[in-house]
């Protein structure tokens, strides 16, 4: 990983200041990489004994349930005078089964000023802010970066891509599904009734891989992300909103008890 002055702002929506084992594991690695690490959340009580005693980690409460308010609160603790190489925002909506793998993504797609791990491309580009890096002097030395977060209307995931475009920043995702992955995502959505399946009376079924641009890779390509970046999104397991088949992941967890324990704890911590 390239040596750059890096700050991490981790947001937790947990009901207490105590982090899960998965988050503590990730945090431990972030401390080694980062010049500064801040943990923010609506229910953080930063006092001694209230939060895990981790050297080099600062804690702050946003006082608001809004995740972006927590990002803003965390960014507010960073020293604006430093020459940050990158500032990474992350939340607790996923479990990092292999934090090292996830951190390697920070050096990918160097042409991007704002690089999320994943995004949905259509109908409008939407960068996922579960893990997103703002990179380079061009992005971070502008006062607008910090000003964004201080504005009354704030920033949201929905408006982030537009703001980047308006500011002339190159924004995109590190994970870009290839053709096979696009087909896999579309097949999954068709298989489980998320997309309508219209079967031709004769001849082969013709599918459009570009439909994957409408689909959330965190859900429809969950296993690709797990293999490549060592993460899994809790939403995949918590809800059936996406209707897709998570049995292979359950099978995998059954064979990997240490990972299963991390996921189980993370799931319960947010329920």
């Amino acid at each position, binding site marked *: 990983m390239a040596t750059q002055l890096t700050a991490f702002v981790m947001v937790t929506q947990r009901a207490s200041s105590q982090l899960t084992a998965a988050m503590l594991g990730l945090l431990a690695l972030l401390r080694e990489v980062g010049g500064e690490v801040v943990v923010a959340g609506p229910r953080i009580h930063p006092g001694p004994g209230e939060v895990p005693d981790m050297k080099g980690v600062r804690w702050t409460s946003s006082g608001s349930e809004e995740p972006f308010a927590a990002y803003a609160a965390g960014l507010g603790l960073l020293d604006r005078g430093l020459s940050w190489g990158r500032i990474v925002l992350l939340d607790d909506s996923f479990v990092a089964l292999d934090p090292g793998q996830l951190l390697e993504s920070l050096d990918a797609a160097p042409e991007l000023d704002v690089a999320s791990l994943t995004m949905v491309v259509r109908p409008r580009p939407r960068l996922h802010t579960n893990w997103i890096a703002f990179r380079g002097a061009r992005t971070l030395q502008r006062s607008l970066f910090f000003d964004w977060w201080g504005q009354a209307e704030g920033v949201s995931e929905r408006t982030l891509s537009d703001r980047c475009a308006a500011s002339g920043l190159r924004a995109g995702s590190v994970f870009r599904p290839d*053709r096979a992955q696009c*087909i896999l995502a579309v097949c*999954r959505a068709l298989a489980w009734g998320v997309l309508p399946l219209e079967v*031709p009376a004769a001849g082969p079924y013709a599918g459009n891989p570009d439909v994957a641009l409408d689909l959330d890779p965190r859900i429809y390509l969950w296993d690709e992300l797990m293999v490549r970046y060592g993460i899994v999104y809790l939403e995949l397991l918590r809800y059936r909103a996406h209707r897709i*088949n*998570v049995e292979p992941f359950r099978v995998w967890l*059954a064979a990997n008890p240490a990972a299963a324990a991390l996921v189980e704890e993370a799931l319960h911590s947010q329920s």
Partner: protein
Amino acid sequence: MAWQDTAVVLAHFSRRGRLAQYLAEFVDFLAPRVGRFVFVSTGLAEQGAGYLQGKVRLVVRENVGYDFWSYKVGIDALGDLGAFRQVWILNSSFLILDPSTLCRRMLDVDHARDVIGITTSNEHLPHVQSYSVLFQGPRIIQSAAFSSWWSRMVPISDRIQVILQYELGLSRHFVSAGFRLGSAFAVNRQEALQAILRSIDVRDLRIPPGGTGTFYLDPTQGYGLNPTQYCCERLLADLRIVKLELIRSKLTKLDLRDLLARLTTNRHDRELYEDALSD
């Protein structure tokens, strides 16, 4: 409902020697309605044997040769088949929630075929899945092919060899003798395509590499996929059966939550399901 022209062989296996509740209900329904019913078990305990007494002819045999050897022992125990128009062999590997529905779909219908499964599969080669096989019509029951198939059988205790030689072999044997295969449950084109999609989902089928633009899937390829897995929900809805290996083990990586929800909707089904799982 009566099928006095039908002989039945049920091959029973239970590690604990139990007679599952669903099998007891199946016997109670079918045994009084058919001409002959042989129940072959590889180790039924006293309680189950007592329950069956007077209802079926019970044969308890050594646990060798898998279900096909039980079929063979049962066919032999049936004796003269001259009085029968149908011979139905089935095993205890699938949960029967409603014997009436299954029996009517199998036995009340002139299938216009000779060897009829509940399901067929094209996996390896087109074949009747051997958990349930109906031989229909005197033409096949009285045939040399029928008697030679059973008389030449020897017990095989290697599961893969049983599948290759006996499950696939049975269909191959009768087709080569001029008989026709059929099934009570037919996979439609939509289900065949959905089976392909689900198979891709769990990576049993691979996405062809390369190419640009539109991708194509041939629905007929789906007929080669196991319907007891990929069409389990409609099998449950239409024939009221489900393969136990599907819900008992991690045979499949498919999401079975809808299936399990349906299985546990009414009390009777839930009781049969829970009882079967307890084995």
